[in-house]
């Protein structure tokens, strides 16, 4: 293996001891050796997509130290390697949840209704960049960005339009929002309240994972510590008031998209999870009061077996960490429940129909790995947000896997594969080595402040890019099997009328609402922010008064300050 393919650190790729049996030795000498002499292999070293060495052959001796009850367990039993449910997809297939959001709340509302009509079983909302950064659609920095990468939501009025006509007690809604998650969640709760839904019954997920923002996605507003306080406030408020809500989706997806290896994705995500647990417990809530509602979100990349091993290892590690390290007693606290999205970064702008095939392989990995919900990317997403036609093919891909492939007929079908079990074990060990390094740095917040995960990911991303440029990593249609082509697909274009429409609505809102009530609630929020009170009730009051997202974030920016990443060197 050339250095460039060795994307992981030595910690990741450390080979584990393998004692060949007598029959293996005989096979290697009498069968393999002559074959290699006449027909050499395609390359000297084979690795996973993340650069982990892969052997020619895996045999029972690779699993000598694997104990079924201790390391796998039956489905629904500790350590949950085989799945968190006893019957898995025989009982119910995963939730098909296509992430969507673009343009105005009216546009996205229409798309959400369309997706439900096509048989989608959960909703997932993408917000535009101004919303993610806590700016209203009429802010100067929002220029050119309103409705482009998701839907624009600046106030409760926008949220009312966005959710119009949706049965909030029946569907579960996932919202990809982080820095201003508490505010957007409060808007959702306020709409649910007004529609008469019972907050004890509604369910859904707010991504609300600020640590991976500093690590990878970079949509942060406030510094890490006050940001963590907001996360803790939402977890605590959720546990008490909205018990079926998943207040956080601890995400490896973006870490992988930023160029990490599979092990880095897993290690940083689970360590982030542990960091949240530690902060909430320090805030005074017992782990079993909130941990059953923690959820995770992983990427599904091209290397099928590496991905399956990652999901299986994720469940085992989380169960062990929560039980042994944190001391959680409730078995539900040990469960790593996760959503999966196929890898956006694997999509190619060239020959876009090939992306349907990539997405299928990735979706298979997620299903073979036991995911609870899945988003499949659309073939046109290297260019733009998907068209309705493209998103339908993506959803149909999941339906074909669920209902035609037969994969869902048995639980954890790859268990017992010498290769998959070995890879699962190696993934767990490499992940734990990262835990040790992060613990030594003083935990995840400290590691982030020192730039540790950021640098590890950047190095892996750069090594991969070099491998691609040397054609050691092949990307079909990009660096090999290239054809001259005109782009054969139509892509979705968001026009600037969305921004104008949003600005007009905001102007009206600011005129029509009770501005003295808005002021009073914002002042109450500001003073609560300087204490250690839970901010959710204050945010809810501001939301109900139709204070805008930007106004509330401005208050918090004044109290908390803003974060700038240490300069990149």
């Amino acid at each position: 293996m050339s250095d460039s393919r060795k994307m992981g650190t030595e910690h990741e790729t450390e080979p584990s001891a393998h004692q060949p049996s007598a029959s293996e030795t005989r096979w290697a000498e009498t069968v393999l050796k002559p074959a290699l002499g006449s027909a050499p292999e395609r390359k000297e070293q084979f690795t996973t997509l993340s650069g982990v060495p892969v052997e020619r052959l895996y045999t029972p001796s690779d699993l000598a130290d694997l104990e079924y009850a201790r390391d796998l367990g039956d489905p629904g039993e500790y350590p949950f390697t085989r799945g968190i449910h006893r019957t898995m997809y025989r009982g119910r297939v995963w939730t098909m949840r296509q992430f969507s959001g673009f343009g105005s709340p009216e546009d996205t509302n229409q798309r959400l209704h369309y997706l439900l009509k096509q048989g989608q079983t959960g909703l997932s909302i993408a917000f535009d960049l101004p919303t993610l950064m806590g700016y209203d659609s009429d802010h100067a920095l929002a220029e050119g960005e309103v409705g482009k990468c998701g839907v624009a939501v600046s106030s409760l009025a926008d949220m009312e339009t966005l959710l119009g006509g949706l049965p909030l007690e029946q569907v579960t809604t996932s919202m990809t929002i982080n820095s201003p998650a508490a505010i957007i969640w409060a808007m959702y709760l306020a709409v649910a309240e007004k529609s008469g839904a019972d907050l004890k019954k509604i369910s859904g997920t707010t991504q609300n994972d600020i640590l991976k923002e500093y690590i990878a996605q970079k949509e942060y507003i406030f510094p890490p510590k006050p940001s963590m306080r907001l996360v803790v406030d939402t977890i605590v408020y959720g546990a008490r008031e909205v018990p079926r809500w998943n207040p956080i989706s601890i995400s490896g997806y973006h870490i992988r998209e930023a160029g990490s290896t599979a092990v880095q994705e897993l290690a940083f995500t689970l360590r982030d999870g542990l960091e949240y647990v530690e902060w909430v417990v320090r805030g005074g809530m017992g782990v079993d009061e909130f941990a059953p509602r923690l959820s995770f979100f992983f990427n599904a990349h091209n290397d099928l077996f590496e991905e399956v091993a990652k999901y299986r290892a994720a469940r085992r590690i989380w169960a062990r960490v929560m039980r042994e390290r944190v001391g959680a007693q409730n078995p539900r606290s040990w469960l790593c429940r996760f959503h999966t999205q196929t890898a956006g970064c694997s999509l190619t702008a060239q020959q876009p129909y090939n992306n349907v095939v990539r997405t299928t392989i990735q979706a298979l990995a997620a299903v073979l790995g036991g995911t609870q919900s899945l988003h499949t990317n659309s073939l046109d997403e290297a260019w733009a947000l998907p068209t309705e036609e493209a998103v339908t093919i993506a959803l149909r891909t999941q339906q074909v896997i669920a209902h035609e492939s037969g994969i869902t007929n048995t639980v954890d079908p790859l268990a017992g594969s010498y290769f998959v079990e070995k890879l699962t074990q190696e993934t767990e060990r490499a992940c734990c080595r990262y835990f040790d390094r992060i613990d030594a740095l003083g935990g995840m917040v400290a590691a982030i402040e020192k730039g540790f995960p950021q640098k590890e990911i950047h190095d892996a991303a750069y090594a991969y890019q070099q491998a691609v440029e040397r054609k050691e990593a092949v990307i079909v249609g990009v660096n090999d099997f290239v054809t001259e082509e005109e782009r054969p697909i139509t892509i979705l274009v968001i026009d600037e009328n969305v921004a104008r429409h949003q600005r007009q609505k905001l102007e009206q809102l600011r005129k029509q609402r009770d501005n003295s009530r808005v002021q009073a609630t914002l002042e109450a929020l500001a003073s609560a922010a300087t204490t250690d009170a839970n901010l959710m009730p204050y945010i809810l009051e501001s939301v109900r008064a139709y204070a805008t997202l930007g106004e509330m974030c401005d208050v918090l920016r004044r109290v908390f300050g803003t974060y700038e990443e240490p300069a990149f060197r």
Partner: protein
Amino acid sequence: MTDRRIRVLVAKPGLDGHDRGAKIVARALRDAGMEVIYTGLRQTPEMIVSAALQEDVDAIGISILSGAHRTIVPRICELLRAEGLEDILLVVGGIVPDEDIPELKKAGVAEVFQPGASTGQIVDFIQRHVR
């Protein structure tokens, strides 16, 4: 121009935080022997042009993936002209559909690198076109 290393400003305008591409290109330019100043995230066109002026750069590389290029890039071109900096080589990389390229080039962009472009192509273009 041969007695001085090429100086490049790599900039990430707009609200988007996806900096994988910008950082990889910055590192590749550095590995190719150029001096690279990376602005960090969320730079306004004004900040980018003022950094270019202060750092006396030969080229600016703009990384943009959010679809906001049609608003942001022409504004940068306008400000560069206003400062008399139109000699600076301006290249753009990211998710820019084919149909938007003529408009950007007309505004003053020398080249647009779309998804799948290699760092080798970018290095080569800058080396050949910096005056």
